[in-house]
């Protein structure tokens, strides 16, 4: 499912909402999560999961092919941890083959 399908789905099952509004709502939610993570904040959504930012310090890496030393700058990466309820929901329905 992609974003437009998500919007379509929600507006179809909620005929009192305009598709435009649903689109704005989805974007507002996502933008808020992005903004929070850009500030280095954590976003915790009970029953779904938590977004956080991991900060990796600068290090000296190696080019695996040539073995040359390369300096890797310090960086931050987004990280998501699945919530407990979500983890359980993924496994309750159909156990994988």
């Amino acid at each position, binding site marked *: 499912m992609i974003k437009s399908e998500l919007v379509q789905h929600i507006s179809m099952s909620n005929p009192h909402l305009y598709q435009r509004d649903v689109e704005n709502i989805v974007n507002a939610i996502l933008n808020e999560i992005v903004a929070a993570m850009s500030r280095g*904040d954590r976003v915790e*959504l009970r029953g779904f999961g938590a977004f956080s930012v991991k900060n990796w310090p600068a290090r000296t890496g190696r080019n695996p092919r040539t073995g040359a030393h390369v300096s890797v700058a310090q960086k931050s990466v987004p990280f998501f941890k699945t919530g407990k309820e979500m983890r359980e929901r993924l496994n309750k329905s159909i156990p994988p083959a």
Partner: protein
Amino acid sequence: MSGKTITRADLCEAVYQKVGLSRTESAALVELVLGEIKNCLERGETVKLSSFGSFVVRKKGQRIGRNPKTGKEVPISPRRVMVFKPSAILKQCINGAEVADEAED
């Protein structure tokens, strides 16, 4: 690390500010959006949210794990896990790069 934690209430507030709906409606809609994403993932479907990232469900087979405390081998049952793959745009945002705001509203 020392940053604060954003919760549902903050998301509802953001929705309330952006869209002309009541607080109660905003809260219900945040729930609706999350619920829809969760249902989709529960079905094993991938959810792709452009310029944000995608949520992918992966199947894991059975494997042998070890209780780290006792060192005993324990079988780990097959399971489904969900992973989040951040988009390049999200990664850039987090590293402080100024990204052109492409959310048109």
